[in-house]
């Protein structure tokens, strides 16, 4: 059975059973440490990601310029 952590000693065994019977395993907060494998990005995917990143950076400069011209 899952252990009862010192910080959660107020959780009764009936509550523990309720959790295990009604939640899906991946829903347990303690199991969120289970890592999902990293996705290998292909060339076209990297290209699109970088293009949009450059787009955002450029547009932020444009917005700052727009604010500056409006305030002056």
């Amino acid at each position, binding site marked *: *059975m*899952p*252990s*009862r*952590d010192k*910080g*959660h000693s*107020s*959780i009764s065994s009936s*509550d*523990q059973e*309720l*959790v*295990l019977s*009604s*939640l*899906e*395993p*991946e*829903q*347990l*907060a*303690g*199991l*969120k*440490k*289970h*890592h*999902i*494998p*990293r*996705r290998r*990005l292909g060339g076209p*995917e990297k290209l*699109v*990601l970088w293009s*949009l*990143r450059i*787009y*955002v950076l*450029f*547009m*932020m400069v*444009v*917005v700052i*310029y*727009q*604010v500056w*011209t*409006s305030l002056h």
Partner: protein
Amino acid sequence: MDAGPLSRVTPQDITQQEDVVITHEDVDRAHDRVRVSAARARRGVFSKFRLLWLLVGPGILVMLGENDGPSMISYAATGARFGIGFFIPFVVLTFCMALVVQEMTMRLGSATHRGHAELIFERFGPFWGWFSMIDLGIGNFLTLITEFIAVRAGLGFFGVPPWAAIVSALVFLCLAVITHRYWTWERTLLAIAVFNLVFVPVALLTHPNWHSVGRALIMWKPLPGGLSQDTLIILLADIGATVTPWMLFFQQSATVDKGLTRKDIHLGRIDTVVGAALAATAAVATILATAPLFAHHMTAENFQGAEFAQALQPLIGRFGAALFALGIVEAGMVASVTISISSAYAFGEVVHRPHSLNLPMAEGRAFYSALFLCAATAGAIVLIPGLPLVYVVLLVNVIAVLAMPPALLFLFMLANDREVMGDLVSPMWANAVATSVVVFLTLAGVLFGISVVAPNIFAFLHGK
């Protein structure tokens, strides 16, 4: 049903792992799920409605939450400046875009039980994850500032001093999360968020010409005055009023926190559709409410926040104007809660700290601290004298649109990731719509950029 890689964790794994800790967060969520299972097991129409009632929440909250202070002020500025002909169908279209996008986040959350920030970090690595977090952090913080601007402006209509308005918004935020129970928080906020529809009676008080409204929806008139930099800003602000990065992060995390599973996806869709319909109704009502300012040749340029309410007072009376101002206050207050929580969820997911509204204060110090710190800092900034309120508000929505394409790309890739989603990957039509949204938003941003760099380009193109 093909379940994806996360289902590798089995109940047997749990019983074998001595270090798996059952938390209060799990217990609260389990109690919610027991009620869902009981409602699902029963037959009859009432049980079906009860099941729907138990499962709605994140979709309605995200949509009504996005009808926030800057959004309502953008819609008000739209109605006052351009009337209804072009913008009513345009706003309905933007909500259709939001619906497609938000359904993906609900599906991702239900299928993976992971928040959006967590999934981006896990699947794409910290390099892309941090870019995404920086976009979200900046966008959320600026938007939070504008929520407090809205609260300040709305309460200003009733003579409440700015400092008292900000303090009341922060107290509201504390009260909203004080129960440390997702279910209570969600129901309380839903009850308050529905007040967003107060713009409907305000619109009715202006006695709209329904024939014109119907014609606007069917005919979709061209932009009055053609395309210019000012029109583009309003266009982008209206798009940013319906699709923004925080919505993606919030709905997915709230779906996970609520405990939705693959079985609940159908009702999660209904939740999102109902939210979009309610929010679109409030948005259209706001445009209708301020359209008389356009018809009476009044402009929004000199009005700040709830000063729209003051401008409307001669047309709809003190009561109608007060309702309008209250609507702005509600929009700001509800969104200040949802956006702060969106930031706190993302923060918890990225730094691997507990992140749930079911957490008692002792277990969720980092989560609640992030939430309150963001809100308090944003609130303090609003008290700086001389802030150009309407300009800041419109600009924040513009920034939200500009940051949206990369956020949508991550969402698009995750929703089509068979290793994560199994057979719940997006269908072709949804991919086509999502791609169109990315292209549309990028083009709108590029047009805005061109208009800033070459302000006279539109006049030149019009041959003026």
